């Protein structure tokens, strides 16, 4: 087995990207419009890439399943975006951002990518300000910053609690400008169902028009997947209802390797689930941990209202366990500790599934106005959902699936193992290792879209041989036929259970076996259970309606069918990674004080799974990880 080659340029870490950029081949301006790029997804990564490629002169198509590109789920990111500007004079630097991100990811990310990300972080802020993103400002007119988990500097830029929305509108508006200029064609309400491979390279997609049900064959010279993460495999997550694994899963089935599928982030600060009708979970931004203090009653069964529990009877467990980072430890630690505390019977609220996030002290210090200024919209959202106001009563929070570090494997050029298929943003695996730090997803999506892909895709075009293919090419006809067949199969069964019921059952299985803590026994059992449930799905599901219409149950059915196949790969990956690292906590591997115990001897690598056939076991490829500047240490936030 040959290890995967990430094509990382040689030379010192600090100059890799600069040198690589100088060496990348270019496409002449007049030739760019002859190249057609299909961008799937219109979130931060997709919209930024589509707009930037069009600005350069490429011919771009941009697909999204939402009715407008502005609704992609990046819109929901609350807290902020990191950049190593060092505006606070608090010792920040590109190296520190790089180091924090690499360490935060528990040394399971590719060093060269992370360094490049840190290097580009400042350009992103510049770009967004130029577009008119209304970042928070100081009275003197300069940009304001806040701090986030896992770091000791303030480098997070924000637009109230709606940073993702504002950054996305910036990218969306750039995209709109290119659409008006005729260089981008939008395909809203279209869902990609397959990548079409011709001559060993990705040459287009099959997409379903969600209104008419038509399956369109869409040839292109390169395909860019910017389709986000797969947290909805757990059924309940903070992701939008439509988020799915379908695009990257279908690409995997066409030959693109899938890296670290078990690296899923469970976010510590979400509103705990209510009843069984719960459709999704709502995140409360990590930025709240700047001023909110997390605690539980010191003794189990303390039924007093939180305000009546005196200091002496409270356990501020994060501050106690991690005195130097306190409430701002990375997400994986905060989540795991919350679970452990609740499992030990100290949790608060219905079912004991919650801990307090208390603003009492911050309200005394900053006043109601000061707190409203920082978190007003989050407090309002919390009150709207729970009926309680955090100005008076501490929030109750519990961890929930939020982000997926795993995704399609890409090399340094963001190209997957399938030539001509590029993967950007959350859909790829590259920069966050086994745990993502807060405010760095937005950074990565925009770095990929504005500043990396536009260079590397040109290099691909400059050297690839791409004979013209038309929509009636055999490969397109074949893929379209398969997609049609698949939809028919979904609609054929008139079983007893709805798609939603199957999705719930799958989600529960994965949450228990492949969520915040995992074990060989649990994962083994889950693998069997998922297979059994998948068989039941194909025998007993009822979808209803038909394929030539707006059919939301059919959309959901296709996504859940893919989640079934994918969930199996996730558990398999978690089982094979016989160590703990970051979010991946294998109960068999922990330090005496309950932290993740990495095994660098055996697992300092990326695991990338190669599809070998529907009924065959996938092959586990490796990309060894080397660290030239930072020696992997045991993460300590104590």
């Amino acid at each position, binding site marked *: 087995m040959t290890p995967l080659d990430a094509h990382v340029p040689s030379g010192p870490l600090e100059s890799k990207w600069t040198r690589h950029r100088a060496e990348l081949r270019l496409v002449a301006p007049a030739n760019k419009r002859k190249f057609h790029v299909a961008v799937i997804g219109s979130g931060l990564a997709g919209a930024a890439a589509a707009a*930037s490629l069009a*600005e350069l002169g490429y011919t771009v198509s941009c697909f999204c399943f*939402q*009715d*407008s*590109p*502005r*609704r992609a*789920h990046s*819109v*929901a990111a609350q807290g902020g975006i990191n950049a190593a500007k060092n505006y606070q004079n608090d010792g920040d630097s590109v190296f520190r951002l790089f180091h924090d991100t690499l360490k935060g990811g528990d040394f399971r990310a590719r060093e060269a990518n992370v360094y490049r990300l840190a290097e580009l972080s*400042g*350009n992103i*802020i*510049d*770009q967004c*300000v*130029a*577009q*008119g993103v*209304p970042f928070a*400002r100081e*009275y*003197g*007119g300069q*940009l304001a910053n806040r701090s986030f988990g896992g770091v000791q500097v303030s480098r997070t830029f924000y637009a109230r609690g*709606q940073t993702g*929305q*504002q950054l996305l*509108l910036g990218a*969306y*508006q*750039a995209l709109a*400008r290119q*659409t*008006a200029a005729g260089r981008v064609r939008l395909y*809203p309400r279209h869902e990609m169902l397959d990548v079409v491979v011709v001559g060993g390279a990705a040459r287009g997609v099959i997409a379903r028009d969600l*209104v008419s049900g038509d399956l369109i064959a869409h040839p292109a010279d390169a395909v860019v997947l910017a389709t986000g993460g797969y947290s909805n495999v757990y059924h309940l997550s903070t992701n*939008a*209802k*439509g988020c799915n694994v379908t695009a990257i899963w279908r690409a995997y089935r066409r030959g693109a390797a899938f890296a670290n599928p078990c690296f899923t982030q469970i976010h510590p600060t979400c509103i705990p689930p*209510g*009843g069984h*009708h719960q*459709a999704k979970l709502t995140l409360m931004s990590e930025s709240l941990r700047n001023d909110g203090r997390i605690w539980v009653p010191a003794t189990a069964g303390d039924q007093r209202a939180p305000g009546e529990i005196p200091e002496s009877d409270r356990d501020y467990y994060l501050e106690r366990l991690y005195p130097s980072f306190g409430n701002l430890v990375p997400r994986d630690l905060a989540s795991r500790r919350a679970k452990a505390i609740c499992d030990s019977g100290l949790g608060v609220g219905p079912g004991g599934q919650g801990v307090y996030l208390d603003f009492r002290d911050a309200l005394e210090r900053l006043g109601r106005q000061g707190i409203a200024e920082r978190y007003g919209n989050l407090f*309002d*959202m919390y009150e*709207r*959902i*729970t*009926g309680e106001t955090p100005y008076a009563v501490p929030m109750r929070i519990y961890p929930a699936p939020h982000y997926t570090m795993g995704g399609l494997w890409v090399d340094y050029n963001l190209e997957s193992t399938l030539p001509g298929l590029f993967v950007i943003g959350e859909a790829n695996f590259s920069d966050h290792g086994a745990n993502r730090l807060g405010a760095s997803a937005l950074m990565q999506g925009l770095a990929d879209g*504005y*500043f990396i892909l536009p260079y590397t895709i040109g290099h691909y075009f400059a050297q690839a041989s791409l004979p013209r293919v038309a929509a009636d090419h055999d490969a397109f006809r074949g893929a379209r036929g398969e997609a049609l067949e698949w939809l028919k199969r979904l609609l054929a069964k008139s079983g007893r259970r*709805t798609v*939603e019921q199957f999705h719930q059952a799958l989600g529960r299985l994965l949450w228990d076996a492949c969520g915040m803590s995992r074990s060989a026994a649990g994962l083994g059992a889950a693998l069997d259970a998922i297979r059994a449930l998948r068989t039941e799905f194909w025998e007993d599901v*009822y979808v*209803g309606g038909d394929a030539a219409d*707006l059919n*939301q*149950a059919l959309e959901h059915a296709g996504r859940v069918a893919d989640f079934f196949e994918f969930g199996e790969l996730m558990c398999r990956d978690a089982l094979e990674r016989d160590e703990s690292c970051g979010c991946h906590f294998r109960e068999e591997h922990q330090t005496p004080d309950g932290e993740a115990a990495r095994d660098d001897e055996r697992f300092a690598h990326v695991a990338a799974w190669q599809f070998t056939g529907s009924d065959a076991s996938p092959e586990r490829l490796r990309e060894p990880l080397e660290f030239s500047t930072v020696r992997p240490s045991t993460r300590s936030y104590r």
Partner: protein
Amino acid sequence: MRVVLHVWRQPARSAHGRFVRYETDDVTPDMSFLEVLDVLNEALRARREEPIAFDHDCREGICGACGMVINGRPHGPRRATTACQLHMRHFRADTELWVEPWRARAFPVIKDLVVDRGPLDRVIEAGGFISARAGSAPEANTTLIGKAAADRAMDAAQCIGCGACVAACPNGSAMLFVAAKAAHLAALPQGEPERADRVAAMTTRMDALGFGPCSNHGECTAACPKEISLDTIAQLNRDYLTALLRAEPRADTL
């Protein structure tokens, strides 16, 4: 609690629609309005009836996908609340709710509660942006923006593009939507060079797309889940006049 729903059912754009009455007992006060529709849809599937089509995605009130008129009011009766964030604790048991799609000439119904809001994207394409190519930006802190101006920009920039303002307006105007974008970008120095062109182009496009004129009813701002202020419309009108009076309109935006 029990809830009676009269939901607009329309199989396709060209088909006739009508209200259909549904009853459900399976509602708890902590459920959101969309979760009620979820429950109803599961019940409809169990009876082999066609579920109700409605747009929704983030369910956090930020993506702008959901939108329906509930008892005559876009997004329902609560101030500053999208349908996905509208919780049943605000309704009495046995309440009767009439649920219909956005009604506006510019938003044709696609199916049931789903409408085509594409025209809002077309308005932004006409000029709702600052032309700033990736790679051309100066260092961010060289552009100083006072906190008050930044806050004003942010107030207007919060628009989620849901279309409630259009649905609320007796004229089916998109004035508040256009004004919010214009005000966001006009509050910032970066937006200044294209200010007049932007306003002229977006307004012209809005009219061409079948949105009605603004006659200052103010229904839009009352329905807006992000409480975009009517002041933005006053500013849009001023900027529009300036645009008409300026010497050299840009050929490519008008």
